[in-house]
């Protein structure tokens, strides 16, 4: 530590090029966005607690669903994964830092401005974006509030930030691995992140294109998405989902990687089928590019198109199944213990499986015509996002926190956080399957009394879930301030990987100043 001569105080954070400082900022930023987006979700659940309009005008309700989606996707999940990548990739491949440290600083510092633009629209005349996070034209173009332009520039900035983060990961992984670490020896988290980075580079420009076309439709007289001028509103959906479907995997692949570290560690047994895990991840990523229109089975596509997208989508179940079976096989005849990271990783596997099977149901075009745009879909994607992406992130934080801070967190409170979250997450999202099947459509502030019971369960669950994350905040602060004493260098009995075997806890500021030898 002797030759660490970085600035302190505010300028340390503003000018830092260190992967750990930047990772920390990404993670805190994501946590703040998670709380803001969560508050909006509670606003939604408050209105839906009983039939009738009690709190919000329907227009503001639409604003809440829109901003909740945008903030959770772009503000909470994606920055959390970039934060984890920053912290972990250099340590896991035996590098001192990321390959492009100054760009790293910039890609983070764009984000507060992007979300400042987006959130400021809440205080503007005409209100914030209210057309759903999918911003379908023409609701978002001809009919969008004036603040839509702030949303468009916000999305552009987020996209630039994501692309820079992705480039950094790719350059780092391909150039800075320790001697001996061949591609097929890379830790799974690194593998899943490299694949995610390629997805990001390929689809974020598509999103940027979509919002740019919106902007010119709104202000410069073009009609990309207006039939009256020769355009096509359905083309918007094709472009959006060509971005949107890979985006779904951007939000889950790193969590797959995380589970592939935690489950072997607490099973005290190597990951089952490492190479099939790599190939399965790559096939999922490839398939994610050729299935986008399964979000659009009711737009009136030609039947041949519907058949193709149905079959292509169902194929994704195969590599995804391989991953789940591999995790189960990793535990088989292992020697299992259930510390907090393992509990979250197990919940991830179980609940992601539930989200996966409802995904197969949704893929089947004839029945999707009933499920589409109902609460069944809301249940499905929250099962893959909350217990998937978010539990994955939480599991990672518990697993690596002792390595990051040098302190052990409170296992007792970690477990309380876990049990609170797992009960609440199911109470919130499981009943949505039923209300959706029974006929409740998405994105409505009010409903017939027959849906009241399930909506009340969801609302109670949501408030519990929100409260549970305050426990998480407490555990984090306690651990950073000293926690339950010093962590050992290896932290966990079954932990593998350079960050546990070659680095002390807490890890030094410049992770590896000399490359370790990987055999």
């Amino acid at each position: 530590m002797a030759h660490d001569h970085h600035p302190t105080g505010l300028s340390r954070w503003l000018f830092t090029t260190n992967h750990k400082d930047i990772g920390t900022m990404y993670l805190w930023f994501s946590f703040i966005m998670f709380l803001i987006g969560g508050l909006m979700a509670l606003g939604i659940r408050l209105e839906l607690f009983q039939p009738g309009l009690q709190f919000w005008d329907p227009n503001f309700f639409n604003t809440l669903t829109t901003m909740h989606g945008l903030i959770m996707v772009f503000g909470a999940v994606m920055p959390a994964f970039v934060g984890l990548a920053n912290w972990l990739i250099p340590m896991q491949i035996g590098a001192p830092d990321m390959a492009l440290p100054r760009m790293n600083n910039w890609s983070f510092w764009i984000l507060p401005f992007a979300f400042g633009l987006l959130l400021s629209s809440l205080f503007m005349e005409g209100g914030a974006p209210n057309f759903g996070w999918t911003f379908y034209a023409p609701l978002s173009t001809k009919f969008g509030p004036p603040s839509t332009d702030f949303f468009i520039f916000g999305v552009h900035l987020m996209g630039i930030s994501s692309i820079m983060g992705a480039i950094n990961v790719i350059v780092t992984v391909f150039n800075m691995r320790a001697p001996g670490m061949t591609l097929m020896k890379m830790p799974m988290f690194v593998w899943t992140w490299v694949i995610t980075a390629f997805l990001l580079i390929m689809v974020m420009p598509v999103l940027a294109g979509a919002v740019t076309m919106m902007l010119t439709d709104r202000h410069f007289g073009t009609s990309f998405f207006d039939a009256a001028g020769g355009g096509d509103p359905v083309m918007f959906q094709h472009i959006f989902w060509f971005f949107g479907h890979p985006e779904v995997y951007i939000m889950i692949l790193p969590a797959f990687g995380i589970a592939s570290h935690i489950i072997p560690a607490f099973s005290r047994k190597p990951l089952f089928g490492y190479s099939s895990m790599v190939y399965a991840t790559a096939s999922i990523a490839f398939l994610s590019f050729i299935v986008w229109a399964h979000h659009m089975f009711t737009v009136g596509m030609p039947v041949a198109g519907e058949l193709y997208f149905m079959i292509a989508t169902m194929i994704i179940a195969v590599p995804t199944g391989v991953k789940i079976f591999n995790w189960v096989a990793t535990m088989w005849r292992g020697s299992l213990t259930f510390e907090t990271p393992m509990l979250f990783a197990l919940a991830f596997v179980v609940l992601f499986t539930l989200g996966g099977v409802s995904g197969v149901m949704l893929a089947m075009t004839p029945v999707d015509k009933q499920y589409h745009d109902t609460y069944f879909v809301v249940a499905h994607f929250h099962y893959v996002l909350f217990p998937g992406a978010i539990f994955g992130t939480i599991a990672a934080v518990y697993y690596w926190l002792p390595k990051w801070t040098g302190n052990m967190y409170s296992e007792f409170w970690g477990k309380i956080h876990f049990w609170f979250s797992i009960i609440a997450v199911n109470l919130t999202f499981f009943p949505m399957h039923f209300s959706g099947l029974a006929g409740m459509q998405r994105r409505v502030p009010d409903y017939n009394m027959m849906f009241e019971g399930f909506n009340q369960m969801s609302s109670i669950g949501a408030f519990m879930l929100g409260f549970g994350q305050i426990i998480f905040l407490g555990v984090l602060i306690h651990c950073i301030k000293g926690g339950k004493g010093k962590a050992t260098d290896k932290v966990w009995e079954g932990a593998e990987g350079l960050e546990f075997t070659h680095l002390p806890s807490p890890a030094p500021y410049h992770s590896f100043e000399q490359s370790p030898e990987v055999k």
Partner: protein
Amino acid sequence: MSLLKKVMSGLVLFVSMIMGSLWAAEPEYSTLNLRPGVTDNSQLVYDLHMEVVVIMFAVAALVFAAILFAVIRFRKSKNPNPAKFSHSTTLEIIWTVVPMLILIYLTKPAISLLLDMEDTSKADMTVQVTGIQWKWKYKYLDSDIEFISSLSTPAEQYNDYERNAAEKGENYLLEVDNEVVLPIGKKIRFLITADDVIHSWWVPDFAVKMDAIPGFVNETWAKINEPGIYRGVCAELCGRLHGFMPIVVRAVPQAEYDQWVEKKLAEKAEAERLAAEAAARSWSMEDLMAQGKEVYEAKCAVCHQSNGEGLGTFPALKGSKVATVDSADDHARLVILGLNAMPKFGEELSDADLAAVVTYERNAWGNDTGDTVQPGRIAELKAGK
């Protein structure tokens, strides 16, 4: 092992309880499951749904059972020495191939059902459905009937901001002023489109959900087997009152349907006669204001509000340029032709109603321009004069 057995049987019980409740739910259209509906295809969709539910629950149950077994049997206290294996080609081939076979098995019925659902040829009659913010317009192409259908649940029932909402009826938010009446046993083709943003026409009992897209016409169909009242909703977010534009279909035997068509045509002729009468006579300011207030509350207040002060992106009319400075003709043209998010009221409202509402907007809330607009002038404006 006895603990394991207990847990396993508990799991089986839990899954069968969920499955049981789904099955038991079937007869009474409960709030737990999809409805089998009243068309051949909705029944097939339901059957396919149940089949995929059972298979998917079985797959998930298998995975969960294996995890549970591992969690109990291979915990450190029971199995202190972990095995070392890390792959098995045979196993990996099995769990790649078996899911593929299951998927192929599921795909087969889905393909034939889908082909039938998308085949709109040889229809007996055609109804054009147009989504408009936030109501549906129906046009019977074979019988020259056209009407608009909008929510009939009174605002007192849903406005509960002061915690004083009126008691809600059984079909709260699922009831309309003009039901779509359709004959049973006939293949009905629906041509679905929209005037403003994308809507989606969904009647769960027909397994029909089709997006209504401005500038494009989508086709779908249904052949209803049983008479009855079937309720649906707009399924695609379409703005502020997306949750407030339900669909109600009343399916009746052919004879009853024919009577309804007769009645509708007679009503239409009567309405045209009255409208012509109203358009021909000269209205007093009082009459225009009284009629205008009624029309305004029914059609305009949703966005511009009863007090004329607007809301959010919906502009105020009170003291506005359009209602006070611009000429009455320009004002009337805007109401007839619409502008951006504002719908075209020219088709929906009669000349007398248009004249009344424009007069009302120019004189209510202290606008006091003193202008009156007569129905005759509206007819001239519509003709482009």
